[in-house]
């Protein structure tokens, strides 16, 4: 039995400790928003947050996630209100959509670390995530837009004080 904390909820899963976190999330907890793309940390479709850091869940043994805060796409916001989700809608980013959970989870870490990334910084942070439909240009635009939204919200909050 391995104890997991996912999207602020506690779970116990019964799998062998070497099972990748990806399959524990998908098959034990039914959190299928995190996708399987390559199984070798090459495509980023399985990206989740482990204590706030982007991790490739397809190569992370579930035992390594024990005792840590796991956040998946289902935990990014309860209601599509995360600036990245709003920007993804505004820029019509997804096509097939399969890679987008991973893209969003990678972008969320980027924006937290770097509130106003340049194109080059976006490229650096996002080049581990493959999109076979070719939505890269829209992802780049949406990250810039989300950064602007976050700044505005921050300013508005600051002004209200």
């Amino acid at each position, binding site marked *: 039995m391995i104890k997991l904390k996912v999207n602020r909820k506690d779970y116990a899963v019964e799998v062998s400790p070497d099972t990748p976190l990806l399959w524990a999330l998908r098959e034990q907890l039914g959190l299928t928003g995190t996708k399987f793309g390559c199984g070798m940390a090459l495509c980023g479709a399985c990206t989740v947050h482990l204590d706030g850091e982007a991790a490739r869940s397809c190569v992370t043994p579930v035992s390594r996630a024990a005792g840590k805060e796991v956040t998946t796409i289902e935990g990014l916001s309860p209601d599509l209100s995360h600036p990245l989700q709003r920007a993804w809608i505004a820029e019509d980013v997804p*096509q*097939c959509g399969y890679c*987008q959970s991973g893209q969003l989870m990678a972008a969320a870490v980027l924006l937290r670390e770097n509130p106003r990334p340049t194109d080059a910084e976006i490229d650096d942070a996002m080049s581990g995530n493959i999109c076979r439909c070719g939505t890269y240009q*829209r992802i780049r635009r949406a990250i810039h837009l989300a950064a602007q939204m976050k700044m505005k919200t921050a300013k508005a909050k600051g002004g209200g004080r």
Partner: protein
Amino acid sequence: MNEILNLSRRCFLKTSALAGGGLVLGVYLPELAELAELGSPAEAQQKTSTFAPNAFVRIGADDSVTVLINHSEMGQGTFTGLAMLVAEELDADWSKVRAEHAPVDPAYNHVGFGIQMVGGSTSTWTEWERLRKAGATARAMLIAAAAADWKVDPANCRAQNGYVIHAATRRRLSYGKLAEKASELAPPQNVALKDPKEFKLIGKPTKRLDTPEKINGEGVFGLDVNVPGMLVAVVARPPVFGGKAQSFDAAKAKAVPGVRHVVEIDRGVAVVADGYWPAKLGREALEIVWDEGPLAMLDSRTQREQYAELAKQPGAIAKKEGDVATAMLQAAKKFEAVYDLPYLAHATMEPLNCVADARAGSCEVWTGTQFQTEDRDAAAQVAGLKPEQVKLHTTLLGGGFGRRAVIDSHFVREAVQISKAVKAPVKVIWSREDDIRGGFYRPRAYHSIAAGLDAAGNPVAWQQRIVCQSFMAGTPFEAFIVKDGVDETAVEGAADLPYDIPNLLVDWQRAPGGVPTLWWRSVGHSHNAFVVETFLDELARAAGKDPYEFRRALLTKHPRHKRVLEFAAAKAGWGKPLAAGRGRGLAVHESFGSFVAQVAEVSVSREGKLKVHRVVCAIDCGPVVNPEQIRAQMEGGIVYGLTAALYGEITFENGRVKQRNFHDYPMLRMNEMPVVEAHIVPSTEKMGGVGETAVPPIAPAVANAIFAVTGKRIRRLPIRAEDLRKA
């Protein structure tokens, strides 16, 4: 896959009250039959059809409008674009419109191909009339229902944004309130469609309906399906195409905790477990002796020699005009080249998968498919049932590109066979390695081409021989696609050369089969456009002419090509100075009824490192439904074609595919993404397809740009640094 058969269009318009109140317009819906607990499906259809529904639109008492989508959503935007067709004529409130996949039923058959499927960039133009009629019929019935309620002349009522309005008495009723009453009416046989000038939705950039579920984890792809009691299977397939398991020892596999069954199936040996991980470990522990079959020695290098030999022999003639041999003799200058373009894997982002639950007397299948009818029928065959005993659910597709339109339905057959064997619902998951090594590739294509210029530099002769496999021969599609011994999917984009060259010969040599091949986004155009557009460029340069002007002069009989080329060239600033070290190249190509021109800007480092900086793209696809999704498809098609041009190559050694995963079958990534500017040429010409049309021009546009900066011609793909390095 351009040609559309003129099948008779049955009138499916029927109505029915929904159990929860509301109107279903369109055709007979199998779900409704089940709701009503009627007998056999055929009987149900009869009974339901007396008062029953229309296949394409469902209006709920809560004002919701659900459009049933019969062309699977695989990223190309059918959920949105097809719903727009219905909503426009329905005058629906777009904020209330939802889309969902249609069940499998003849009502949803492709109007051209006669089966339920998505492919050939045909979804929008083939539904252009049918879905607008479905919407207009619904609107007419809602108006009639309101008019009857108000006891006024329907001609004095109008529909607007989800309401029927009687202006004179200032009354209005929402569609939801009218739905039940409307469902009691007989659908009108002939409804008038709007004049395009009245369109409020069609032609306007419209946000995708499926974005929310694709950014919060809720969207259900095939891989996400969960059925109570479901097991997970992986299949050990032969390492060589055409091979077979001779014997196997399952003891070690069965010793892996969580492994439940090891069963032999037609396509290999399946390991069935409680989850993917134990199934995968079980497969690794499985010991199989393979009979590798006739392709055990297949090798890409010797295959090239074989293709080169075939290219020396005349093939089946796809196009013949004038007298090429004589013209070639009389030409002032002659040019010859051979091209070698590799097998390509589709590499959809979501690896193949299928869930099946085969029981005595029934079978359910859940999968992301482009081929509903074929897959359902295949499932029935494997399960030993009638097609109507199989219920196939279409999930979201994590990319299709042709890979999920499988003529032999192998990924569905496997799942049904395993489920039947282990007597439980089973999800078959393909690993990325299984997917890349699983075949059904874009065929390798070897081209031998020659052309002649007259003394003034005008092309007078063009002879192109294409050597590649046929994936149509021997299939139910053969009758449609193989004509006079020529597989159209092998020669499309070459046999219909638009350039005005008086003596023309295009023929095809069928290469031996064995390696499973299939349609890969843009099909034959993917290799033919590369050869045609780079070789023509070469002729232009040899004639001392600007490649843009050279093309324009040869396109006088093809105004749509010419116009789109001019549009792209103007937007790209063709002929204007570029930054030092950069070069421009262009290409124009017609495919799937649309016309696309692209101008690429590239630079090449001393070490031969290529960088594509900018691509300007113009499309003429006729009338436009959702311009934002056309632009998205241009962007995506360019990435798809560029990925293949830079990296795509499936090769064989000792009969085995060498590539495995994204490290050796790489994909274009964010840091390599050029700036793409996609333009739509205003057009009232015939509506064409979109999804595949941006793929063919990108590789030749880039190769022509490479020539502009390096003076080197690309004769093989993918583009290799060694072919670009300064000598």
